[in-house]
């Protein structure tokens, strides 16, 4: 039995906002299972008292201060790659009927 079931594939596809074909679901079920089995190798290591590292060069709490550089796009630039524009604004799909 594979580690990742078809229903898990379908659930994660919703989380990723992806539409998958039946064939893609099948391939993902086996390929993701293979990868998840592989990454299980980390269970061999004792990590109980080990802190996590999210940032490898130790930079923390960086804020823009006096060296603030203002980068901004004007409306025309911001809209220049939009699929649909109306009245100088982006047109989006409805979100409440999802």
């Amino acid at each position, binding site marked *: 039995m594979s580690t990742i079931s078809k229903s898990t594939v379908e659930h994660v596809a919703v989380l990723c906002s992806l539409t998958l074909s039946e064939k*893609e679901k099948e391939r993902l079920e086996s390929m993701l299972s293979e990868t998840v089995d592989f*990454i299980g190798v980390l269970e061999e290591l004792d990590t109980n008292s080990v802190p996590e*590292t999210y940032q*490898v060069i130790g930079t923390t709490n*960086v804020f823009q201060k006096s060296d603030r*550089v203002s980068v901004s796009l004007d409306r025309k630039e911001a809209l220049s790659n939009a*699929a649909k524009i109306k009245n100088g604004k982006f047109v989006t*799909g409805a979100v409440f009927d999802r």
Partner: protein
Amino acid sequence: MGLNELTIRQATEGLKKRDFTSRELVEECLNHIEKIDPQIKAFITVTTDYALEAANRADSLISSEGEKAFNKKPLLGIPYASKDNFCTKGIRTTAGSKILEDFVPPYESTVTKKLEEAGSVLVGKTNMDAFAHGSSTEESDFFTTKNPWDLQRVPGGSSGGSAAAVISDMCIFAIGSETGGSIRGPASWCGVTGLKPTYGRVSRYGLIAMASSTDSPGPITKNAEDAALVLSVLAGKDPLDATSSPNDVKDFTALSKESLNGLRIGKPKSYFDLDIQLDVRKKMEDFLEFLESQGAEIIDLDLMDPKYSIAVYTILQRSEVSSNLARFDGIRFGRDRDNFNFENKKRMMLGAYTLSSGYYEAYYARAQKVRTLIIRDFEEAFSKVDILVGPSMPCVAPELGESKDQPMFGEMMDVLTEPSTIAGLCGITVPVGLSGQGLPVGAQIISDRFDEKIILDIARYYQESTSFHQGRPSV
């Protein structure tokens, strides 16, 4: 020798002496692209008009200011190619993906901005695996770049277009980006020099993100001396990238190594115990012998098995990918999400899975803890040795199609580069000869964070005594 075959140093000397103009230099590169790129397919976009105008501007500056013009603009008039994931204002930037096929950025990446300010001339944007998800360019949504040494083989990836463009002299240097092995891999398989700087050394602003905690832009060049020149231009704190480092930028171009006496070189046993192709192993032995003959001491080291690094990388990179690609909604820019290729979908899916409720602790959090163990392992190593040396890739460039249906292909190819990238270290690959089939083999030199100087010096020292970096395929 064509002008397009010159290194940065040689081209700059020629421009200073007025042996030729930037326009002539750029035209030779553009002509060469027109002649051989239909076979190699390194470029997604060639920026002919833009390049000729920039070359004219460089020439005017050289005629009005003479050699002084190069003090402020160290790369003045030098043609380069950029991987197509660096945003270039007004120039189409695709990241190798159909989603961004028509995307024209309204802003400029810090890397390309700094290169422009240094006077260099963009001749084109190079092919890559879509969103850098691959190690061969076969995951590009447009076409596969061919390895100039053998057109039936891959150039490596994801910066495969940049590496192929440099070895076939379609530009003087190129820019790539590395997340797991995307500079060192293709540079090794194409027989050029590739530098992956320390994480944070070079700004990521305007680089289309793959995995934000490891993405590192860097140069792909004809030799280490050029890599140092380009790094000196690119390095430094950028207020637009909060993760860029405030550490001092050294003068990477000043050569300080006259011999390798006293240099302690770590040879990680776990790297050499891997299934390394015989030809690669042989060239590595020659490389180590050379370093030893110059006074260096080779010290056998026990480093963690790279399988743990691959697992950590797989989890972190996929998780960050799932987050970074969430922004592609087809509303503000780009096409809708149906345009992601299968590889993109697969990576996002795994990332969303490892981040999702119930699995976060088991996968993502545990991977970040093992990352700490890997960093500690390297720190201990660097208390005993100055640098680490190993093969860049476990084999020479594979044939086209070999990666098909291998979900872990990239990880297996990048097994020797991923440990250092997840720890944020810097590394450089240099060509160390050809295999029996006539394909380039690369050796990598790795050092601790922010110590690019030592690996550049050693690579340069090696290249001053050998000529492997001067080898060219007969395209």
